[in-house]
């Protein structure tokens, strides 16, 4: 029962910054919110493999190919940690995948944009992973134990992702004129969607209230976005690329960069399924899943036979 007594006790635990563990009592809304957030995070890791995977076979050097493969493998691993964390809340992996396929669960909209040139692989690592890290570092202090521990593990690998992307961009920016153009073009296309990754402004953020009280979320969308902008603008300067925002300027008094208005119309369109690749990313995931059905059935049948043999033996 969700008596006021339980709720109060729960809040006291949260306020003391003690982690909530799977067997602890928790309000139904807390569980629901976590399932939504962690599964969305897990699906993002997995769907995010697609734009980068698009370039594995075309990576321009053996070294670049090895780094990209290792990075994508990490992302798949992150997906696994997060599915496991989510399963501790009493939902199965199959149900989670099903929610993804029916559209009930979302993934980060950023992966609905296409990786059209090799420079996009640089931009994704630098900006998309760069933005993800800012969010994930903050989430290391989230109140749910398994989620927090998954974030700590993931953050250890993420800084390599951001660095490899920045390295690709740096090489291109210092390369031939065509390469530099490729790098600037990728930055132009990925900059704004990366800022959108942090979600709506705090003033229009529908889920933030309770998430903050329950310390699932520790810092607001705008705070995290600002942190990302401030570190990334300087990195762009170092490699001689220009952030595609005419209103971007350093505010001496506040010690932050001011930025132009984000196109929330585009954000809403992509979230609502009208991004360039929403349908294709999902269709790819569904078709891989369906093509693998006979393999999973075989594995289950084999496991069942082995179990029987053990019982008979």
């Amino acid at each position, binding site marked *: 029962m969700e008596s006021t007594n339980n709720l109060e006790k729960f809040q006291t635990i949260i306020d003391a910054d003690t982690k909530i563990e799977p067997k602890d009592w928790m309000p139904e809304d807390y569980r629901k919110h976590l399932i939504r957030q962690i599964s969305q995070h897990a699906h993002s890791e997995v769907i995010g493999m697609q734009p980068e995977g698009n370039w594995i076979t075309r990576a321009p050097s053996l070294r670049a190919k*090895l780094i990209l493969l290792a990075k*994508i493998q990490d992302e798949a*691993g992150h997906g696994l940690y997060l599915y496991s964390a989510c399963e501790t809340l009493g939902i199965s992996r199959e149900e989670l995948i099903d929610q993804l396929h029916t559209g009930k669960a979302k993934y980060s909209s950023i992966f609905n944009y296409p990786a059209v040139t090799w420079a996009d692989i640089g931009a994704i690592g630098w900006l998309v992973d760069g933005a993800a890290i800012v969010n994930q570092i903050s989430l290391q202090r989230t109140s749910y134990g398994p989620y927090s521990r998954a974030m700590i593990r993931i953050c250890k690998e993420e800084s390599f992702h951001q660095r490899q992307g920045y390295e690709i961009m740096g*090489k291109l920016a210092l390369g031939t004129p065509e390469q530099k153009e490729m790098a600037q073009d990728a930055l132009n296309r990925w900059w704004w969607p990366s800022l959108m990754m942090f979600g709506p402004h705090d003033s229009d953020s529908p889920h933030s209230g309770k998430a903050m009280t329950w310390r699932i979320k520790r810092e607001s969308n705008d705070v995290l976005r600002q942190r990302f902008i401030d570190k990334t603008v300087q990195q762009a300067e170092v490699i001689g690329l220009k952030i595609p925002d005419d209103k971007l300027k350093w505010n001496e008094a506040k010690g932050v960069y001011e930025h132009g208005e984000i196109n929330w119309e585009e954000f809403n369109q992509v979230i609502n399924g009208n991004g360039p690749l929403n349908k294709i990313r999902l269709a790819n995931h569904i078709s891989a899943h369906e093509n693998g059905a*006979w*393999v999973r*059935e075989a*594995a289950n049948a*084999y496991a069942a036979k082995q179990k029987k043999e053990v019982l008979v033996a």
Partner: protein
Amino acid sequence: MTKQEALFSYTLRLGDNALILGHRLSEWSSKGPLLEEDIAMTNMALDLIGRADAMLKYAAQVEGKGRTEDDLAYKRGERQFLCNLIVQLPNGDFGYTIARQLIMSAFDLCLYEELVKSKDETIAAISAKAVKEVKYHLKFATDWTLRLGDGTEESHQRIQKSFNDIWMYTGELFEMNEVDAILIKEGIAVDLNSLKARWKKIMTEVLLEATLTVPADAYMQTGSRKGVHTENLGYILAEMQYLQRAYPDAKW
């Protein structure tokens, strides 16, 4: 043919096999039947492309014309590649990829366990690392052959068909030419004939345990030792080499 030319050709052969098989496995990214299998495929691709990198680096050094491992991977044409036909074949379904992987991992295990004793120190060192990796690949392919072979009726039929279809590409793995003759004499290469029995034994044991039939050794395809490949290789190279060829002055 000089010893140096033979060694260059031999290291290309080993490097190209790893590169193209790794390429094929890397195509499984985001397509695996389970996320765990996706990771395992990528992992094997990483091992193989890593091995290709080391082997081609050495090939470039042996050649001594200032080329790099990337020049060899990205700037040779179809007829200059020396990988076996089997690694070029399209992935097919998961079972087909597993069948090919079992064949190749068993072959690589037999090969590299011998090459660890090669008088060429670089080949021996790369082989020592390869053996560790290949043992895992063989276990992965074995486990899946068992599951699919002794799983459902459908999976049994599918993987049996895959082994039947692919079998005609296995003979070529053991073909030898002047390159082998020269390097066997030097204690650098291994006599591939001597690996056949052990390879066949591994294959037979796994397939029988998986309730599958070992296909008969009928007519075998050939060509790769002369650089005459499948039609698939051209497409693989077109994709793999596209950036290096489109921007010849660029460094990546």
